[in-house]
């Protein structure tokens, strides 16, 4: 829509200005790592953070969320659709792609009003990543190093100022009446061109093949022995799925007070890496081994989501790799499958099965 310049010195004022109108959340430091949290004062905000422990999806799909409250005696039920006008500051481009996928999931088929309520009242201020945030990220390989088109505001660090791309009316509203911004000069344009040109070489492709080949590679990998190898070392702790910006599975439970009358039904993030995730009554577990569960996760990320929603399920943020205590990573997994494919092993194993 438009392009503006905000001096860095004005950022604290802007944050304060936003805080008067919205709940403002953004990356903050915690014991050497970063978490998205409500910004109490502008100096808590760290915009040049590497990555956050949990992705900002927690504001759209909270870890625990009450779906409705009830009175079991009178059968009164009340939906709990919660929202608060929120601005999320400093969303990395990979996480923007992930939110795009979540949007798709929650709008496909039946609408999840809880997600929608959060989403509609959230304005996303993304930020251009100028260098790799950590050793595990592989956004360039996944095509998520640029912001998807549906951003609201997008910041680019230009040294002593931010370039501010306005992508939507919601984004525009964040600047309405804030005066410490101006239209770019030709110098500003030169600067942003330079910054953008310089950033690319800093990132490297980490997949040994093009991401468009990934779904087919995975299609061939159903019977790969690699899954058993991963299953042998996997702890099954589920951390990979908790930190993943594109995971959204949940469990649902009722809680009720001691008089067994008033209660609530809540949903909590769940994980397909957990033993009983696919177990049905009668005890049959459709993914009974860690190997099968690992396969499911990587298939979801690299293939199934694409088939179901038209978007690839991994955005290359690298969080799961960083969280994994036994060093299972998407990059190594996909590259290893590719290596085996090149040696003909995948086809061989498929034939044998």
């Amino acid at each position, binding site marked *: 829509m438009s392009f503006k310049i905000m001096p860095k010195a004005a950022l604290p004022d802007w944050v304060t200005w936003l805080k008067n109108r919205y709940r403002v959340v953004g990356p903050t430091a915690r014991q050497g790592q970063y978490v998205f949290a409500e910004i109490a004062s502008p100096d808590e905000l760290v915009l040049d953070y590497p990555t956050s422990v949990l992705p900002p999806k927690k504001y759209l799909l909270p870890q*625990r969320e009450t779906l409705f409250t009830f009175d079991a005696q009178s059968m009164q039920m009340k939906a709990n659709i919660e929202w608060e006008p929120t601005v999320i500051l400093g969303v990395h481009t990979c996480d923007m792609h992930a939110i795009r996928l979540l949007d798709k999931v929650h709008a496909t088929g039946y609408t999840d009003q809880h997600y929608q309520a959060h989403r509609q009242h959230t304005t996303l201020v993304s930020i251009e990543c100028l260098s790799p945030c950590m050793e595990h990220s592989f956004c360039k390989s996944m095509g998520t190093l640029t912001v998807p088109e549906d951003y609201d505001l997008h910041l680019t660090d230009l040294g002593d100022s931010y370039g501010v791309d306005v992508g939507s009316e919601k984004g525009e509203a964040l600047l309405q009446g804030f005066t410490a911004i101006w239209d770019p000069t030709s110098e500003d344009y030169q600067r942003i061109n330079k910054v953008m040109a310089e950033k690319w070489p800093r990132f490297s492709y980490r997949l040994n093949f093009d991401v468009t080949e990934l779904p087919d590679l995975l299609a061939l990998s159903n019977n790969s022995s690699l899954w058993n190898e991963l299953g042998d070392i996997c702890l099954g702790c589920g951390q990979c799925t908790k930190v993943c910006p594109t995971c959204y599975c949940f469990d649902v439970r009722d*809680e009720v007070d*001691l008089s067994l009358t008033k209660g609530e039904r809540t949903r909590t993030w769940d994980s397909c890496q*957990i*033993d009983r995730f696919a177990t049905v009554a009668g005890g049959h577990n459709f993914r009974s081994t860690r190997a099968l569960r690992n396969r499911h996760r990587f298939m979801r990320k690299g293939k199934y989501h694409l088939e179901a929603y038209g978007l690839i399920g991994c955005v290359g943020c690298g969080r799961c790799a960083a969280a994994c205590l*036994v060093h299972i990573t998407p990059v190594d997994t996909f590259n290893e499958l590719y290596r085996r494919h090149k040696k003909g092993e995948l086809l061989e194993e498929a034939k044998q099965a």
Partner: protein
Amino acid sequence: MSAKPKVAFFEFTSCEGCQLTVVDSLQDHPELLDAVEIVQFREAISEKGEDYAIAFIEGSCSRPSDEPKLQAIRQQAAIVVALGACAHLGGINAIRNRMPLQEVREYVYGDRAEWFETYEPRPIKDVIKVDAVIPGCPIDRREFIKAVTHLLQGRMPFIPDQPLCMECKLKENICVYTRGKVCLGPITLAGCDAICPTYGDGCEGCRGLIANPNIEAMRQVMHEHGLTDEAIDAKLSMFLTNQIMALEEAG
């Protein structure tokens, strides 16, 4: 359920911390006293009723003469709930189960070892049938209250069946491994709201092992984080001695 169920509390070898937690749960839920009728709770009350339907048993069984007492409770109670790690796993008391029993006795009692009766501390499920477990050392207050509501509903208490890491990550804790410590979270049952990592310490496994834990991988991880085999054994034997010995036996 119409009539208030009669419940009783018993303790065997334990620190009584779990029963204390039950008392503490009254701070937030005084209505507990309206929901159930407590007929026996030696630590807190003098009344003594023998017509209980639900028995909460704290503590491990650590001497042969405890067995008939447990059996008598089983006879009376329709539902027996193991309260806390001691009752559930043998708990901290079972640390010594890898040591020769006679050596342990003599270390503490010297030449009077024979005066005092003991054997390897064990979970009460090894002595009587247990219907439900409220794990933890100590148990979690909220979970205790939740378990009581489930019992009132006529069902067995639901205990989360996922690893602790799941809960820990929900809270966005910084993984204690990145803080230079080790943690048994990946193989331990969740439900305590990952309280130890939240307060900066690694999980000790007090709630017991998840289904099909990958012990070998867990050892490998601890090894990588600088623990010797001996230190790893110590970690795995704080609360998990009996469970791991059982796994070893099963091969």
